[in-house]
């Protein structure tokens, strides 16, 4: 129980530090958000970006998923059947 309290205190302290930093920072933002959000489809823009600019990470991501799949199946599979 005490350890949980300590953990809680650590987490709260962390929150305080980050929140303080967030509040005191002046963030660079665009002056105002695009007015009519419904007009803009960001889906299309994201799609284009994925297949142009971020095509390499995307391809690597395919390897990640495959690797995770192989690893997970291998580890989770029970070895009882001979």
């Amino acid at each position, binding site marked *: 129980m005490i*350890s*949980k309290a300590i*953990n*809680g205190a*650590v*987490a*709260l302290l*962390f*929150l305080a530090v*980050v*929140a303080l930093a*967030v*509040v005191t920072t002046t*963030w*660079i*933002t*665009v002056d*105002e*958000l*695009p007015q009519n959000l419904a007009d803009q489809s*960001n889906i299309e*823009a*994201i799609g284009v*970006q*994925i297949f142009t*600019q*971020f095509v390499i*990470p*995307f391809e690597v*991501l395919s390897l*990640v*998923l495959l*690797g*995770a*799949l192989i*690893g*997970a*199946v*291998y*580890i*989770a599979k*029970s070895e009882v059947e001979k």
Partner: protein
Amino acid sequence: MIPLTYYLILSSIVFSIGLYGIMSQRNGVRLLMSVELMLNSANINLVAFSSYNDDMSGQVFTLFSIALAAAEAVIGFAILLSIFRMRDMINIDDINILRW
């Protein structure tokens, strides 16, 4: 218009909850949930920054990170499953053969 800081405070709170969880929970599944919380709080940040900076790459990053979080969870559950099969429980603080 909601100030950007609100999103960031929210994500910090979520992140801290995740931190608390990973430090205090003994159940493996809860631990994984905590990790997901932390990853997703970062996603909130990324999306918020993305729209407030009017730059699309943050949202693409978010998509990637969601996929990665899924892959991570898969591996995590596989390891937990394997632990469960071996010891019939997933209280990970009892697993300490390797120490010192």
